[in-house]
């Protein structure tokens, strides 16, 4: 009887592991395009350590220049912010003096630790900031580092655009 249990355990374990690998492969395949995000960013940022230190480049704006004094229209890339989970970079899209969209250029995904957190948090943050027309919103619970990176990068983009809300 003990042998029966042992054999069944081994077979079931092998099945469970195989199923895990299969599902994992499918998840990875589905994730790849969204993880890269739209626009110019790639998710393979060279990661150096540090908690929330801001480094990296802020690339110039693209698109037309709006009226002087107010915010410029166009797409503005934020700085790349290093989080414990990897680099985070977003771009602000400003149209008609309003923040109309936020694009994620680099998503925290270091070691696969937090890609799902990021996938979860990004749309929520986007909704919040579009509504508030500001990067000054609260962070998402359970995704503090991702949120901070997102908002910090966004603020840099908004500063560049001269966007004051």
């Amino acid at each position: 009887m003990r042998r029966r249990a042992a054999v069944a355990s081994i077979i079931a374990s092998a099945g469970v592991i195989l199923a895990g690998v299969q599902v994992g492969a499918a998840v990875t395949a589905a994730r790849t395009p969204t993880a890269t995000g739209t626009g110019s960013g790639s998710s393979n940022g060279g990661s150096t350590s540090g908690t929330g230190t801001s480094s990296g480049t802020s690339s110039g704006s693209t698109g037309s220049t709006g009226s002087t004094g107010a915010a410029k229209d166009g797409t503005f890339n934020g700085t790349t912010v290093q989080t414990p989970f990897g680099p985070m970079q977003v771009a602000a899209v400003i149209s008609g003096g309003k923040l109309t969209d936020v694009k994620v250029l680099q998503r925290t995904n270091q070691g696969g630790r937090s890609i799902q957190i990021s996938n979860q948090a990004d749309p929520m943050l986007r909704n919040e900031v579009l509504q508030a027309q500001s990067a000054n919103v609260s962070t998402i619970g359970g995704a503090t580092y991702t949120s901070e990176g997102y908002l910090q990068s966004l603020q840099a983009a908004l500063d560049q655009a001269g966007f004051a809300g």
Partner: protein
Amino acid sequence: MTIQNASRPAVSPSSAGQPSPQARFRRRSAISDLLVVIAWVSGPVAASLYLASGGLADVKDFGSFFTALGIVTGLIGTDFILLMLVLAARVPVIDRAVGHDRAIGLHRQLGKPALYLILAHAGLLLIGYGASSGINAIAEIGPMLALPDMITAVVGTALLIAVVVTSLVAVRRKFPYEFWHVIHLLSYAAVLFALPHQLSIGGTLAEGTVQRVYWIGLYVLAIGAIVIFRFGVPLFRSWAHDIRVQQVEWIAPDVASIHLTGRDLRALGAGGGQFVIWRFWTAGTWWHSHPISLSALPTDRHARITVRVLGRGTRRLTTVKPGTRVSFAGPYGIFTDAARTSPKLAIVAAGIGITPARALLEGSQLARGEATVLVRSSTDDETFLWTEMRKLAEARGAQLFAMVGPRARNSWMSQHDTSRGVTLRSIFPDLDSSDLYVCGPQAWAEAVVADARAAGLPEHQIHLESFEL
């Protein structure tokens, strides 16, 4: 050795209508095997949670490899700890299938591996995270502690270390039982402290994933089993059955029967041979619970337990006043008719081991000649409950042998009987088709079991209940 009565039963209770021991054994071992499979496979399932979240694709270099290993060891280690909680929860289906003893045995075996896995989890992730950030594991400790919910996780790990270390046999002997028990209760806190960081950090259990649902389900199952079966059911039963001490009766120089009264005690469904964990609510005894076998099947209003005075704790038990309130957990154990596997029944009992043996015989449905009983004692002082045993054997159509006299060297039998060539097989001629129930002082009982194994009796036909003396 003397034959106390020949098998001349007044009534032979019919076992018709009840499935045969063999059929019951097949059913029980099927359930037990299923539980064993579920228990072991839960480990690979935990690892699979990580694999299914696409973990393998992230393994690209030295650092990510260690990170992956760290996550998997954490998942399996935590799964083991939750499994340990379930095993200690006294869940009825587990107790009925494998018995409380074996469940606790597995619980003990899992302790150290679970701790090692959790420590490996911490170490591997320090190495892995560190390597990804280009620093060593020690330098990674700071950034690691800055992660959300990491402080509670560290506290949980420290508690876990305390729980496991105080449970090591060598360490445990140094402390009184109560100290160990209080430390052990911290394992509930350890498990809960570890939960936030699992849910807030890694991607494997991220919000919106099936993995998270499964994982929280495991926690609910383990904590729920503890809350319901360790606390809820015993509290409710203690309240509903309202058990009080009726009388303490000395039946041998250091052996006392405690008679208890209560409400509707038959509804407890106690099987003969089961034990109950008792707590007597007097100033000197309330803080210590005692597992004690029922020495008679409960009637609606009455139950009886019999204890040997071994130390201060049991001494105090014999001084409780009539009317003392008694709370309890149980009945537990499968030293009962329910564990039968074979057509015949053989019982060997010595000393205080007579208590479950007596209840077992009382609770068994037996055909005439189905059971043979051997009671053993070194001196005439130790023959308590034998008169009752003789009457029961007569009523059940069982053959009863008594063996009195000093124990022979290297044997569990008396000198007199070994010298005239008595063996286990000469006492129980149908041994091969019998279930052998052995209960008595630990060393003696183990000697009987060793003898039975040497005689070629398969493991599932041996049932042991030993008393620490």
